[in-house]
């Protein structure tokens, strides 16, 4: 299948058709996307700011307990994002803001994976007032920075509708 055929096929799925025909599905999806975004920001602020040392004297375990909210927020936004995409794949796919957003989400996911595999077990052994290593701080800073750009690109996405490059 060519790219055009795949996009056409996605558009013609029952999901795509349902979203386009429904008066409220897209708006409800957007609202949920905002709630999911807020859950991610709140959770990641707690986790990453503790790892960065901006908030201290807190057990890292108790800060990391807030991570499931970020995962729930991400899953809400993944599901609603698929819904948006299915409704109008031809708008999203060539959109440079969409492409960069997806690439940054993958990077942010990879960054989270690196932290989980290489760092999480070690930081959980640290005391309440102990500082994390510079590698952990780098992953925490990257996490905040990448997700901030993901948010901004999402909001800018409609402004790039119809363009195929940023410049």
């Amino acid at each position, binding site marked *: 299948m060519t790219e055009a055929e795949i996009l056409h096929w996605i558009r013609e799925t029952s999901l795509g058709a349902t979203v386009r025909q429904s008066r409220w599905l897209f708006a409800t999806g957007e609202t949920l996307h*905002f709630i999911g975004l807020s859950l991610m*920001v709140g959770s990641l602020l*707690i986790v990453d700011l503790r790892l960065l040392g901006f*908030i201290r*004297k807190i057990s890292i375990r108790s800060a990391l*307990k807030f991570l499931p909210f970020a995962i729930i927020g991400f899953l809400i936004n993944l599901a609603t994002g698929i819904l948006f995409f299915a409704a109008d794949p031809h708008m999203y796919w060539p959109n440079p803001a969409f492409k960069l957003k997806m690439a940054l989400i993958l990077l942010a996911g990879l960054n989270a994976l690196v932290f989980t595999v290489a760092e999480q077990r070690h930081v959980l052994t640290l005391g309440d007032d102990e500082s994390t290593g510079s590698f952990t701080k780098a992953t925490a800073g990257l996490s905040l920075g990448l997700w901030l750009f993901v948010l901004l690109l999402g909001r800018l996405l409609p*402004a790039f509708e119809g363009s195929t490059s940023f410049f």
Partner: protein
Amino acid sequence: MEFLTWLEQTELSLWLRESDWGHPIVLCFHAVGMGIVVGVSLMFSARVLGYSKDFPLAAFDKLFAIAWYGFAMNAVSGVLLYVGEPRRLLLTPAFFIKMILIVLAGLSVWVLTKALHGMESSPAAVGAGHRAEVVTTGAKIAAVFPILLWIGAIIAGRLIGYTIPPPPPP
């Protein structure tokens, strides 16, 4: 109304309404501020409702200090969004509902901090070497309101885009 018609013709209003980037950039700030304010508030409510009990409530002081920057960002970007469409926004009830819900949400967070104020550390918990804090049932009830009101404000905000009529004639 005359003032609003004047406001609508200012350079700033025109730029916010008609330039390529004015509106999207302001919306970006508005979304980041929302994420910070609502996100911190939701985590605070979750903590008061019993989530991650070892996480000290006092740690939210610093998080709320950041949330205030988020709120300031949204106050400024919100005023700018209004300046872009000063008469048109008054034509949808969703706008008024959103403003009321934001005021109520802010008040509910303040009430929640008051409900927690004067709360004492449980001697048993301290004796056991824990730093778990005792949260009253009243505070837990108070913690539900910010969740509902912020979600309501987000819904109303989204509805503005769907219920706003075409621009009124000049």
